[in-house]
């Protein structure tokens, strides 16, 4: 068979990591250029990830680092699922970095850019690794940089929620570590494929306990109810560009890690029924809490909880179409929520307030920003022809294909939450366009470097909403990779 040459996926992690540590050196040489470093880094990642697509669609890429044979070396497993997420991460990272060029004005910018790069590098590491201890390490990189970034603005609310996040996050990390330790003690290996080969299916309590520890630990970052109490505070007090990444990427990466462990290592199908309910409850509680919020960023944060609930629900259906729906919903949530947070960032900057009522008449004053915001809300509610419709449609289709009464009841609950979601998002649209503002100041649009990423997000939302088929093949193979434990084993262990 002809060997296909491709760029080594290690660079996806190595390049941004190296660039992150070049930043402090560069500060003394050429300070103006540091804000362009993340842009360059994630553009590189985006391009490399996209070039890897055709190869990964044929077979998983396994990269071994510093070791001998597979189970004993540190390895990366670049499968469709991991690559899909890494594309989303680098895309969001690239666009948000462009946004941050103008948006980040205060504070120590060097630290911001380093932490931003580390956060996303950690995220890419989590999705590409094939080893649970590495997963933990990358996960810590992601979490610690997000603790720091939440408190970046240095105001009271930021520090307070950063500390709260830190406390809960470190409990999560330690639980995860305990879980990993328990597994390692029993099987003497940390390689996911090797573990998966030894654990046929989770059946004894000695497997369930470490599984529960890991689920709880990862569930905190994945924002599953009742482990998500840190999220509304943290997401609302971070700078908007960081909120976009936290909401759009970080919690989804946590969820991906959790699903990877559940599907690949433990193959715990009986646990999925429980997650189904947990997902719907998370969705319900997230949307209901968002309903009566007056603070826009808190509202968006609660809405993220709801969306995560929906994704958990989709994954827990545990069929190929359910997982496709889950992955599609991840993509659509990343696009929607990033767009909403980016648009909100400049709206807050303009009005100086996070209260929704202060956004009156912004449709006149910032027409493009308001338009992009509207596209984001329409998409997140699930109205055609935007991408949110395609993803919700897939989830409903997957759930109904089960043809069980239980799923019809759960779908009814999801409909209720969509109605609530519609109610609060349409209220903001009305505030933007149909309420007169008191101050008659003139038009002042967001900065052009902020409009470009918003425009690209909005365009992607529209295009993927009309032509979802374009990415369906990729999503299907991602779903079947995650669902099919045996093919993952074979691809790694040979």
């Amino acid at each position: 068979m002809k060997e296909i040459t491709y760029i080594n996926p290690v660079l996806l992690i190595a390049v941004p990591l190296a660039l992150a540590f070049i930043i402090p050196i560069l500060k003394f040489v050429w300070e103006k250029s540091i804000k362009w470093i993340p842009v360059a880094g994630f553009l590189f990642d985006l391009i490399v990830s996209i070039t890897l697509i055709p190869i990964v669609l044929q077979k998983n890429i396994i990269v071994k680092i510093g070791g001998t044979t597979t189970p004993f070396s540190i390895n990366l497993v670049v499968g469709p699922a991991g690559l899909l997420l890494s594309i989303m991460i680098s895309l969001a990272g690239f666009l948000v970095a462009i946004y941050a060029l103008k948006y980040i004005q205060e504070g120590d910018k060097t630290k911001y850019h380093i932490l931003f790069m580390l956060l996303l590098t950690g995220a890419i590491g989590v999705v590409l690794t094939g080893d649970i201890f590495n997963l933990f390490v990358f996960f810590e990189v992601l979490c610690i940089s997000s603790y720091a970034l939440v408190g970046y603005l240095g105001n009271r609310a930021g520090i307070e929620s950063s500390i709260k996040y830190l406390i809960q996050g470190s409990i999560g990390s330690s639980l995860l570590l305990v879980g990993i330790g328990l597994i390692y003690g029993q099987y003497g290996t940390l390689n996911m494929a090797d573990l998966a080969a030894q654990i046929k299916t989770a059946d004894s309590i000695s497997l369930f306990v470490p599984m529960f520890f890991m689920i709880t630990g990862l569930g905190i970052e994945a924002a599953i109810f009742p482990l998500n109490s840190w999220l509304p505070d943290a997401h609302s007090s971070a700078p908007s560009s960081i909120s976009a990444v936290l909401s759009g990427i970080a919690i989804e990466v946590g969820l991906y890690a959790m699903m990877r462990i559940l599907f690949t290592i433990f193959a715990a199908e009986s646990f999925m029924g429980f997650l189904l309910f947990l997902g719907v409850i998370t969705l319900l509680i997230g949307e209901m809490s968002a309903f009566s919020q007056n603070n826009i960023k808190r509202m968006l944060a609660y809405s993220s909880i709801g969306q995560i609930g929906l994704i958990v629900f989709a994954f827990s259906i545990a069929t190929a179409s359910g997982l496709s729906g889950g992955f599609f919903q991840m993509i659509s949530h990343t696009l929607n929520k990033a767009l909403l947070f980016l648009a909100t960032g400049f709206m807050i900057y303009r009005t100086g307030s996070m209260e929704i009522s202060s956004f009156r008449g912004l449709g006149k004053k910032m027409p493009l920003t308001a338009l992009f915001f509207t596209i984001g809300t329409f998409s997140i509610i699930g109205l055609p022809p935007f991408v949110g419709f395609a993803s919700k449609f897939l989830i409903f289709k997957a759930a109904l294909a089960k043809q069980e009464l239980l799923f019809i009841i759960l779908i009814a609950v999801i409909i209720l939450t969509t109605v609530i979601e519609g109610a609060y998002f349409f209220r903001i649209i009305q505030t933007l366009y149909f309420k007169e503002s008191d101050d008659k100041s003139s038009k002042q649009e967001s900065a052009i470097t902020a409009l470009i990423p918003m425009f690209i997000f909005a365009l992607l939302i529209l295009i993927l909403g009309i032509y979802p088929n374009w990415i369906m093949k990729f999503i299907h193979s991602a779903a079947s990779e995650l669902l099919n434990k045996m093919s993952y084993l074979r691809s790694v262990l040979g």
Partner: protein
Amino acid sequence: MILFYMMIFAFVGAFLIYFAGKSFPRIKEILAVVISFLLFLFVALLYGKDFQINYHNFLGFHLFLRINMFSWLFALTITFLGFLSIIFSLSYMKDKKNNAFYYMNMLFVNIAMLGIVLAGDLISFFIFWEIMSWSTFLLISYKKGSALPASMKYIIMSIIGSLSMLIGILYLYDLTDTTIISQLSHIIRFINKGDVIFVVILFSIAFGIKNAVIPFHNWLPPAHSEAPSPFSAILSGILIKMGVYGFLLLFYVIIGLDIIFHLTGLTIVLNVLAAITIIFPTFLAILQNDAKRLLAWSTVAQAGYIFMGITYGTELSVAGGIFHFLNHAIFKALMFLAVGAIEYRTKGIRDLNSLGGFIKKMPFTFAAMLIGAMGLIGLPLTNGFVSKWLIYKTLILNGSPFLAFAALIGTWGTILYSYKLIHNIFLGQLPAKFENIQKAPFSMKMPMMILSTIIIFFGILPGIPLQFINKIIVSFGYHPLNVSLFGIVSDSGNLNIINILAATFVIGVLIVLFFRSGRKSVRVDQYDNYAAGSFIPKEKYSYTNSFYAPLDRFLNSFLKDYIDIFYCKSAALIRHFCNGIRKIYTGYVGSYVMYILLFLAVLIFVQLNWSVF
């Protein structure tokens, strides 16, 4: 592909209006008129065609557009009324800000409705349905202020409806493995009755909400009265009739005649709902003091007639239902436009208690309103007469006296509120502040004139529209009606407009002779006519104030919109509950840590004791 290019053209045109409108203010109006006229022309040229095309593939579903007689009639009505109301908007929207946005959304609504009736599969049906919902939301909100809660009510009801339809579509897909309408109609007979009823219920929620059938009607009155008047005409004339289209599609095209009327109890329930929808809104309309709200309640009631017609299920009733849809679209649009003209000239006054005496000032609008009201009541020689005749006839012939009685009561109420509307706006005394009111501008008169002409034309020659309707009901599997140009011939009695024309003429001559033979009448001033010549200060009395006061006092205690109150109460309850849920996030980090540890502890405990996983 012509259908697809037409839709693309329309969507591009709508965007063009918005962006052109930003830079060249005049051009957007011209563009809006031209595009809506071209759409009308395209659709008209498609007469008699019957084909479908696959235009897109969405997540593995093939999306189709198709045209046949059934969708053609609806498409023609949509584009025609869309065109007229855009002409009407030219002066109505003249001084308003942001009208590029208005025209764009107006076109969006029209295109989306066109898409609904041209959809050849349920997924594209749903997609266009949703586009219609959100563009309608934006248009209802357009007037700001009290329009905002109205549009909120609309969009929430609408989301509930469309999601239940989506579930219905997917449920049907799981059973039949297709969403293409022409295939569904073949496969549906192999599905068991219980599933069919479940699907019918899911779809009926969506269509019932759009069609404002009680108990799903409560969004309609505020939405219709708060929307800009040309859009109210569209909303009332055709948008809510998308529900009718949906019901027809579901009952007669997808499920088919031989199944739907064998589902026990279904038709009875739907008929009773229709009867309730006729009676209560009619009386609520009598009590209204806002001209547009009165018309809105009247729309709910008339939608009840249409619903009665299409769910009763005989040839005559279905033909009557479809014909009444067409007629209602015409006369209700006309009446909304007439009220819109008044609103435009009085700078936004719709309160029936403060208007009056406009007959001399706006005679043309008066004539239009009168013709519209005649059609609404169903007087002979107007179109409403023929369609109501068909519905009554079939209700009586098939032995449903109670339903017929409900329909009659509805007509009685219709006379009362139509008279109230005409009297309070055009008759009585002209309030002093309206002395300088001007006539309606030409761009308002023209649509009203066309619509009035059609009402009379269809009233005298009902054979023309009935021929099209005949083809539709034949395609549903009914026997054709025996239609002539002037009426219908059937075994149980004929409808012949020529006889009615002759009778009307004779009665008219008799009336003229009778009044000629009497004493000469004395002309009195408009301010004099109620006091028989004796002087009463103008401002002291106004007969337009609290019209039907005794009836009002009598009905008011019984007629409250309990359903609306119920919905509002439940919304408040949910809001309250949501506030409670939010308290889970206490803000105290100790309790958060407790949640985490409890979660882990409960998981382990449950597994240890019961090993459920």
